[in-house]
């Protein structure tokens, strides 16, 4: 199924109008000024995105509009819906508006649905709260709504409980519930943040359908600029509780006039960008909204800031038709056409040795996985536990990583990428196959050899808060691996100070605890700890996915810089294909415990040959409105099957868009066995439309051409593999 990325054009009247909204509430640390002076008009059928990082006030805004802010919060300003003032209404009055005219979709679909009622009951409740209809009629409507949002077998699934639904299905049910009463405004607060990319594409598609169906105006709250580019007509950028730039989506993406917006756009790694110029790095962290200093809140991080910025906060001022920005320097930015590269100079990387030009095949292999498998028994029963099945978490993968190389391992949650990583780190014998690190099989290692190997093999985890013991000062944290390997006190001290400088932290902060640092700084501490013993191979488990965009860029740049300077090898596990494109030399795509495509990064991204890789690449939104509007998407059906019960034959066939178009005879090989990883076919990439045309499908097999211009290390596991131009 393909969907063209079109948008609903806004021509309606103003439905929701917010004027000078302020939200303040007390907290442990003092008075939180969560929102400071937000104004906008929202027209019927229009989508406005509110973009900002954590603490920018975007979610508080949505709760304030819904009247669901905490009791202690004080709200001033005006919120009018169809001209009716909402600020100051009683709970009874607001309740008649909520769910009827104003609907909301929350971020985490698991906790947002009541666990003890069926999906149907919850939708029926939404209808019956506002309309005097019979239960049977409301129930019928619930089934229709579930059908509309694309839940298969709605008559049956309407009786399911939330925990029986997958994340994507729950979010669909949430949307069904939100549009049950044909609302005029739908507020979607990070509706896809908790979901995988292919599921995100499905849900965003449903959200568009829902908007067309209801003609509602949508407020889309998100931190993902790609989603903004694809979904919205207008954008409000918020920083420290304040709108800093507002305009049409094209204005914001192509003519940003506020340095924060410019930096944010420059900091996002892009799926469609070749090469690896460093990303724009915003120094420092977003400020606390408690006790804000005077002046522009962005001034401490802004290279253009001058004395005036630090004393007086600029108001929003027109910089173009329907385009406002809050910056004293916006005139200069317009005049001099300043871009992120001009405003945010790249961190000086120090002395970088010349790049290693040895061909890949001649470099030393630091890690190789041979037919690696990890199966877990699936246990049941509390008293007498018994084995009822097997989870094929990792099921026979081959990979190799050469010195100085970054291998990206990508896939959706549950594909086995983290298990692979843990298998390597555990240094135990896997269920099947071999793990060879620095030429040594890990299953044969003695205690002492393991310890030596751990010195050269280090890890950086996803959540920088969870991976640092909150009870230790960061000096002790970074020194811990040195202690294990018996470094003397004096040497340890010098080494830790060096490391802090290397990762861009103040050595004077060595005695502080992890909670005194921001997310990005904590991840730098984690990296310093990994570097302490001068390892050769670092495995990174989603090292930047928990960080805000402006922080993430700095960490990515640091990792790239370290790799070049220290000649490290990285095994980089991530779900974000844009980050992988930016940092990796090679990429392996995993699906249900198997590798379906692997190869050089530019080769795989420009000529993806497996339908899953193609779907993944097409599902990722690109922060460029024009590109997004013209893109064609492959939407995969359904969810990832359980690794305890993988489909027979090719494990991807249940969701495969090519398989779907094949006639029964053509399907035979796919049903028979998992296709082996073979050299990807040659030839010019075809378009997506061609790729999905069953008439064009031809099995590869023995007559698959091995061309001269196709590198032989681009491998793909599909009988109908062919390169497709997705980007």
């Amino acid at each position: 199924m393909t969907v063209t990325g079109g948008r609903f054009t806004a021509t309606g009247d103003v439905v929701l109008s917010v004027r000078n909204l302020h939200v303040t509430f007390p907290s442990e640390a003092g008075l939180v000024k969560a929102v400071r002076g937000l104004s906008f008009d929202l027209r019927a059928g229009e989508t406005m995105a509110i973009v900002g990082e954590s603490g920018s006030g975007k979610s508080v805004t949505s709760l304030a509009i819904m009247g669901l802010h905490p009791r202690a919060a004080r709200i001033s300003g005006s919120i009018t819906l169809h001209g009716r003032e909402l600020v100051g209404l009683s709970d009874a009055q607001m309740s008649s508006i909520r769910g009827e005219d104003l609907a909301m979709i929350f971020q985490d679909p698991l906790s947002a649905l009541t666990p003890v009622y069926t999906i149907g009951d919850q939708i029926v409740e939404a209808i019956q709260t506002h309309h005097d209809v019979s239960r049977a009629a409301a129930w019928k409507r619930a089934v229709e709504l579930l059908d509309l949002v694309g839940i298969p077998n709605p008559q049956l699934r309407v009786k399911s409980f939330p925990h029986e639904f997958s994340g994507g299905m729950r979010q669909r049910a949430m949307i069904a519930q939100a549009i049950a009463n044909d609302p005029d405004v739908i507020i979607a607060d990070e509706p896809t943040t908790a979901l995988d990319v292919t599921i995100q594409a499905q849900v965003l598609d449903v959200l568009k359908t829902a908007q067309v169906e209801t003609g509602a105006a949508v407020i889309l709250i998100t931190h993902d600029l790609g989603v903004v580019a694809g979904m919205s007509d207008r954008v409000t950028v918020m920083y420290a509780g304040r709108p800093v730039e507002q305009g049409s989506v094209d204005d914001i993406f192509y003519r940003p006039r506020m340095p924060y917006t410019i930096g944010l756009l420059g900091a996002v790694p892009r799926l469609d960008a070749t090469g690896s110029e460093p990303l724009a790095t915003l120094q420092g962290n977003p400020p606390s909204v408690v006790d804000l200093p005077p002046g522009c809140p962005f001034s401490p991080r802004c290279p253009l800031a001058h004395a005036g910025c630090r004393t007086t906060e600029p108001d929003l001022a027109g910089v173009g038709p329907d385009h406002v920005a809050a910056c004293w320097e916006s005139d200069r930015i317009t005049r001099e056409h300043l871009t992120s590269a001009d405003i945010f100079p790249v961190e000086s990387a120090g002395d970088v040795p010349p790049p290693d030009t040895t061909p890949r095949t001649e470099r030393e292999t630091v890690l190789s996985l041979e037919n690696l498998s990890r199966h877990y028994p699936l246990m049941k029963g509390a008293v007498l536990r018994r084995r009822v099945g097997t989870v094929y978490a990792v099921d026979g993968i081959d990979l190799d990583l050469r010195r100085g190389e970054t291998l990206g391992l990508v896939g959706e949650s549950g594909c086995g990428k983290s298990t692979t990583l843990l298998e390597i780190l555990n240094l135990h014998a896997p269920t099947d196959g071999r793990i060879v690190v620095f030429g040594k099989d890990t299953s044969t290692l003695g205690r002492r050899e393991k310890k030596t190997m751990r010195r050269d093999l280090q890890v950086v985890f996803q959540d920088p808060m969870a991976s640092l013991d909150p009870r230790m000062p960061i000096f002790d944290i970074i020194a811990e691996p040195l202690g294990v390997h018996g470094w003397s006190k004096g040497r340890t001290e010098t080494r830790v100070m060096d490391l802090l400088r290397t990762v861009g932290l103040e050595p004077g902060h060595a005695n502080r605890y992890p909670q005194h640092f921001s997310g990005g700084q904590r991840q730098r501490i984690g990296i310093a700890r990994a570097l302490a013993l001068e390892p050769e191979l670092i495995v990174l488990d989603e090292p930047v996915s928990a960080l805000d965009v402006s922080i993430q860029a700095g960490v990515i740049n640091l990792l790239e810089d370290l790799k070049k300077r220290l000649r490290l090898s990285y095994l980089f596990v991530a779900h974000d294909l844009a980050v992988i494109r930016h940092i990796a030399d090679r990429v392996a795509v995993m699906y249900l415990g198997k590798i379906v495509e692997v190869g050089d990064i530019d080769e795989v991204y420009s000529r993806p040959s497996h339908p899953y890789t193609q779907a993944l690449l097409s599902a990722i939104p690109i922060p460029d409105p024009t590109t997004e509007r013209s893109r064609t998407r492959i939407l995969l059906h359904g969810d990832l099957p359980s690794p305890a019960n993988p489909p027979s034959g090719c494990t991807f066939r249940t969701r495969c868009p090519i398989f779907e178009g094949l006639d029964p005879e053509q399907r035979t090989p796919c049903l028979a066995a998992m296709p082996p990883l073979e050299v990807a076919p040659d030839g010019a990439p075809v378009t997506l439309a061609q790729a999905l045309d069953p008439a064009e499908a031809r099995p590869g097999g023995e007559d698959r051409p091995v061309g001269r211009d196709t590198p032989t290390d681009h491998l793909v596991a599909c009988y109908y593999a062919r390169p497709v131009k997705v980007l």
Partner: protein
Amino acid sequence: MSVDFRTNEEPEALGGFAQPAAPTSHRLTRGQLVRRRFFRNRGAVIGLVVIGLLVLLALFGSYLLPWQYDQRDLGQYYKPPSGRHLFGTTQAGFDVLARTVRGLGKSLVIGFMVAVIQTTLAALIGSSAAYIGGWYEKAWLWVIDLMLVLPSFFLIAVVSQGGPKGTYAWLLLVVLLAAFGWQLSARVVRSLSMSVKEREYVAAARFMGLSTPRLLVRHIVPNIASMLIVDVCLGVGYAILGEAGLSYFGYGVQAPDTSLGTLIAEGAQSTTIAPWIFLAPAGVLVLLVMSVNALGDGLRDALDPSSMSGGQA
């Protein structure tokens, strides 16, 4: 009722909002935050003060009070509270206040000893079960189930009835109360340790090559410490009530020792003619247990950042 003792949270700068806290320029240390949360809880602070006063009274009461616990005021039998005897006198002319203070001392000693012993047991058994796992863990879980099935009150009474008598008999009581008091805490410690074990910084330490004992001491024990502090505190209340309950039937502290429980049992004989003999130790018991509970609750709320009850700004 299990409580989530998450320990690695940052200050909740945004109050009740489901949004991560904004990085604050002047961050509070964990200690400062805990102290602030604790001292805002009036009940807990009062509890702490009351416990302090009661402990001082038990320690130095005999020097401060006009009457000794074993001193008869001849002719003053069954006298109601007065200036001479603040809490009245008993049938034999003993000062009720002096005897209450004497009983309070024994109750406090028993309470603290039992609480410390049972929490230590719970910590050792719970954390080792979680860390070692396998048959060791299964065996302990089974022992815990077994001990919970047995009605501990009767078994303690049986042993107390048949056990040795004399000056140190109350030590046996301490052992028995602790032996039947650690099981539920051990379960909590175990599940807490399991979750700590799953944390990434423990995994990180393991991948660094840290040995198991060092891992336990450096990363696991400190993270369950706050739960243990609360457990000791609530355990004091449990033990004091347990001892008093046994004493009420004569299976607790044996004469010549007295505890709040024995005094209550004694006073209950004459509630119609001399209610003060009963009310004085009963009142002190309730006050003491209330204070310990309030202190424990306050500590838990202060140490557990996810607790709603501590979060009123």
